[in-house]
């Protein structure tokens, strides 16, 4: 069996607040392999997004060990995490988080530029063409529709050819039809590149498109299995 892409062992996350320490995640064990698609579902406050942030290296676990794409995230400093993330992980946010002062092309080229890659713009243009925005390269985010913005964000996540795609409610800010188009693109791109996908969603139908569904409650993974095993029983 191949080496796991994501390996979380007894991971916990406690955050300080004015009311005292809050246990956000507790005793998380998780293994995701290359090419897997995983949906994370659960009610608000169950720890879905925090789990995604730990996997992205954007948050440091307070307990346990996290290994992603061969990097021990619990042992890396902030800049080393940024470098590891830039090469191995692409992230798609619910609110897109495009840089408003940069064009679509520039937004997509950013991760490569941070790594000092000389052909950043050419690669960015190619990926934008892949998501159907080859004709919108010089448009600023404010000149694009919500769906187009999310496609730019998807292109930006894909451009460094990551081994892992993380998506946080990728359709949360989009209408139904547009959301479906973006999701189709997301799944097609990850399948074409054999990229693993971990997606946080409230949308059960969307979750069903993943081969594996993690269900969370109170900071713990309460079920982990193929979508057919989920309580809804629906099959893809």
């Amino acid at each position, binding site marked *: 069996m191949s080496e796991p892409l994501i390996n979380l062992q007894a991971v916990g996350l406690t955050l300080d607040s004015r009311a005292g320490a809050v246990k956000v995640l507790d005793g998380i064990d998780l293994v995701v392999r290359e090419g897997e698609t995983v949906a994370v579902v659960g009610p608000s406050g169950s720890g879905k997004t925090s789990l995604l942030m730990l996997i992205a290296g*954007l948050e440091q676990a307070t307990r346990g060990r996290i290994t992603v794409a061969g990097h021990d995230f619990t042992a890396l400093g902030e800049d080393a995490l*940024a470098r590891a993330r*830039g090469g191995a992980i692409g992230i798609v946010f619910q609110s897109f*988080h495009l840089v408003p*002062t*940069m064009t679509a092309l520039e937004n997509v080229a950013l*991760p490569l530029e941070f790594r000092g890659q000389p052909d950043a713009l050419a690669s960015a243009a190619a990926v*934008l063409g892949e998501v159907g925005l080859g004709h919108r390269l010089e448009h600023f985010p404010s000149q694009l529709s919500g769906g187009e913005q999310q496609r730019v964000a998807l292109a930006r996540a894909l451009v460094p050819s990551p081994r892992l795609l993380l998506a946080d409610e990728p359709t949360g800010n989009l209408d139904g039809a547009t959301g479906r188009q973006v999701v189709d693109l997301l799944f097609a791109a990850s399948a074409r590149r054999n990229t693993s996908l971990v997606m946080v969603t409230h949308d059960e139908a969307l979750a069903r498109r993943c081969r594996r569904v993690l269900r969370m409650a109170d900071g713990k993974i309460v079920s982990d299995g193929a979508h057919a095993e989920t309580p809804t029983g629906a099959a893809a």
Partner: protein
Amino acid sequence: MTVEAVVEGRLETNRQWLPTVLMLALRELRSGIGGFYVFVACVALGVAVISGVGALGDALRAGFESQGETLLGGDVTLSRPHRRAEVAERAWIDARGRASESATLRAMARRLDGSEQSLVELKGVDGVYPLVGAMRVRDVPVADVPRLLAGAGALVDPILLESLGVGVGDRMQLGKTEVQIRGVIETEPDRISDRMTFGPRVLVDLATLEVSGLAEPGGLVRWRYALKLPGVSDASELVRFRDQLKGALPDAGFTVADRRDPSPQVSRTLERLRQFLTLIGLTSLLVGGVGVANAVATYIDRRRRIIATFKSLGASNQQIFLIHLTQVVVIALVGIAIGLLLGLVFPLVLTPLLGDALPVQTAFSVRPWSLAIASTYGLLVALLFTVWPLGRASAIRAAVLFRDEVAPDRVRPPLWIMIATASIAAMLLAVALATSESQRIALYFCLSLAAIFALFWALGQGITLLARRLPRPRRPTLRLALASIGSPGGLTRSVVLSLGTGLSLLVAVSLADSSIVDELESRLPRNSPDFFVLDIPRADIEGFTALVKRVTPAAHINQAPMLRGRLVQIAGRPVEQIKPTAEVQWVLSGDRGLTYGDAVPEGSRLVEGDWWPAGYDGEPRVSFEADIARRLGLKIGDTIVVNVLGRNIEARIANLREVRWESLAINFVMVFSPNTMRGAPHNLLATITLPAATPLAQEAELSRQIGRAYPAVTAVRVRDAINAFNTVFRKIMVAVRAAGSITLIAGALVLAGALATAQRRRIKQAVIIKVLGGTRWEILSMHAAEYVMLATATALLAVVLGSLASWLAVTRLMDVPFVFSLSAVGMALGIASALVLFLGGLGTWRVLNAPAVPHLRTE
């Protein structure tokens, strides 16, 4: 357009040779510098002041250089007190080129009826004056000076006509002779190269001067020889001339000046003024720095999500810091460029406004050095106030993209940011010290500024904490105002920091002004003599004393021999080789008054060594002023050499004296043992102190009687001299206040920026108050209460700090009693309240008129 074309085009425009950080920084700046207007204005204002001062200094210097020959009256001048050039000396001078002889002295001009008299700066000139340049005389198109002066003619400054009540064509008394006023001087080409003038100019020819009896041996006359060297002489020839003079006339005691620097005294004064105003410019730049820091902090705060996005895409902290630093530097460069442009036009605008107040006609000139200093200051101050808030960017976590986080109120930046900030501050100090003549003053100035900034920062923190801890008043408007003052993103720190420094400076200047004016107007006249009488021939002193006693029997007369001489050597070293501090430079440059005596002069106290016994006849001894001796590194037993009347005299320092200069008693830096100069021809200087109740009429009568009996004697009323000085002093203080006000303008800019930043939050707050039933009046009262409390606290601390600074300067540096003036408190409170209420009021007006619905919807 094809994808390839777009990418190709972008590759071209992005210029791939640019480092990634620079490319990304510039890419983001395409959308403009909105939000940075106050930043740009603050940098531009400070740089404009510094470069403007530099440009004006350069223009004056260029004027000096281009008109050097005219201002000096020739290529070279030789001058010395007391002694006219002897035949051999004159022959040597004439052999070098065309020469013109003149003599200057202070004298009294009187109406023929004796009813009015005035101290004048008398100048006697020969038939070839002026050698270079032209004399302009009112209503005389081409002034033929020798013809106008021939046969006891005089040309005078217009002010003399006023003070004596005479006109052109009238006659007046000069010493023992009568002269006719033949014209009014409009321009005297070489006036600047004469010593500082106190009275109006009277120009006569040398023949008239001789018959006036004013230039008798022993009188305080300065003889001057202007020389036009043959052909076009370059700088090396001027240096060669000096060497030749040293070789040919080694002990002649001439002071040499050449056209490269026609008046070292004026050059030095201008240089000091430039340095002082540069420090004021630096202060306004530093105050503006608060606006820079606010703008950058707001920018970073606004970009939290973008920075987080960068981080999520793999950007390192270093990359993020460098991207933003590059942007800020580019914006600072825009401010610096605007400041430099404004600074460059400053002399062009100011020259016509100042007109005759400037000592020389300016010549437009751009010196890279001045621009470099202003730019360096601008960039260093921008960096100093930028690096710290930029460092906070590293504390922004990418997690804010997933969940809203409360921005931490106080984040300590990483250690390297603190080290970078301290290094920039050290560089700024180094530049200030390196570009100042008096490093000690520059150091004190910078340290005081740092202390004032620290104190106002602490006051801002203190007020914020106090407002949070104070029990909340019952009245809702006061309660809300207090809450606003104590809120984390409130205006408190900005108001206190931006206005505090400028106000402290103004309070300090005002109090120093009132203390010095009080000293000049009330204390000095009360404690000092009433008359200084110059040039009393030794043979006349008994008759003079008898006359004074007859007119004012209770008068106290003090007298001392008076000569002028130049220090040539101290402690075995020629003075040319000594680099004294700015404070004592005057002692070594030019002539000093000298005296001798058997006893310690009045107003002096022996602090070290012994006075020579009466009738002492040994090795020449001298008593030196203690503070000046210390600064020159002189001690008892050292020798000094002075050139008096063309003879070098060596004397050993026997003792050190502390002199109370402010007593205005007769006193000198150097007092010699009488055997040193007994044989030298000289006149006497006397002071007359009248009883306090002496009526003015009696004072005037004494003055008239002295004038009538001793026409060659100059009696100056101390009160008049003080008034004349006071007039000049007040003009200087107006200029200093104007310079200080620039700091307040910078403060107002910072305040405007802080208010603009807070505007959105204040509108939201006002909308909520309105929704909850608050009236516009209540919102207005709340804002007014907040502004008044902040302005009052700031003004009061400014009064305390300004008073302390003024007290230190007045009592320690100037030895003048400190006088506190309530008007300074009123001024500080008034300016602070006016600025805060005006600028805040503009914001409040918009807050009051903001419709509630859009803000509630966006909520």
